[in-house]
């Protein structure tokens, strides 16, 4: 009896944990539509954590720019020193599907005529 109850409790915990799964690692939490954003670099590229990141100020908001994993981002030529803070950049990718979140999962960053293509196998 105890066993059966705890097995069903475990299953319930799993279902609760899986249901609201959104983005970060995958693309499922992002809009299907291609998205472009032009703004100024607020915080330089960081090659730490599961994905490289940077922050861009655009449309009166600070946007979280989620890049590829750090080794892949670096391989695309994009590192901490590649783009100075305050530079105007164009971001191409997919916006977070939650309209209240200003986050773009990014495929390309263009600055000063240079394109950093962190996901070259994606459109």
């Amino acid at each position, binding site marked *: 009896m*105890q*066993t059966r*109850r*705890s*097995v069903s*409790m*475990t299953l319930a*915990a*799993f279902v*609760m*944990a*899986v249901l*609201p*799964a*959104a*983005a*970060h*690692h*995958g693309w499922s*939490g992002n809009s299907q539509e291609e998205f472009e954003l032009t703004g100024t670099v607020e915080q330089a590229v*960081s*090659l*730490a*954590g*599961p994905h490289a990141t940077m922050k861009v100020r655009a449309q009166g908001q600070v946007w979280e720019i989620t890049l590829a*994993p*750090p*080794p892949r*981002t*670096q391989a695309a030529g994009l590192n901490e020193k590649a783009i100075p803070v305050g530079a105007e950049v164009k971001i191409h990718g997919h916006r977070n599907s939650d309209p209240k979140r200003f986050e773009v999962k990014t495929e390309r960053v263009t600055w000063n005529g240079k394109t950093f293509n962190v996901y070259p196998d994606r459109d």
Partner: protein
Amino acid sequence: MLGHAMRSSGVWTYGVVNLGHILGVATLFGAVLVLDLRLLGLWRTVPLPSIAGPTVPVATTGFVIAAFTGVALLATKATEYAGNPFLLIKFPAIAVALLNVAVVTSRPAWKHMGRPDQVAGDRRTLAVAGAVSLAAWLTAIGAGRMIGYW
């Protein structure tokens, strides 16, 4: 300081520490699963001390590895995880699991596990501990895996 070390020691650091965390969790859960299933009544022909003997130190080692690497992973971007609801499931689940270890190992049923005069009550106590342990660790691991998908 730890967060700074994680952020400034190369692009592979996070991936390698993440690998260590997975190996720690795998070591912990593999050992825990075998012990808990024995406590729940599987493999009764194998004496419990013969299973507890190797699984307890292996699980403890796995937990220590997972704890150290886990702190390092969190420290990388501590502020980003502050509002993550899965952390609020994961850490209480770990607390329950550790409390369960403390409680069961202080019970006579555990201390006298090798004795031939074990009564049904003792077996029930150990089975409950095994069930709580499995539920708590599965919840902790399930919630932990989901942290990155929030």
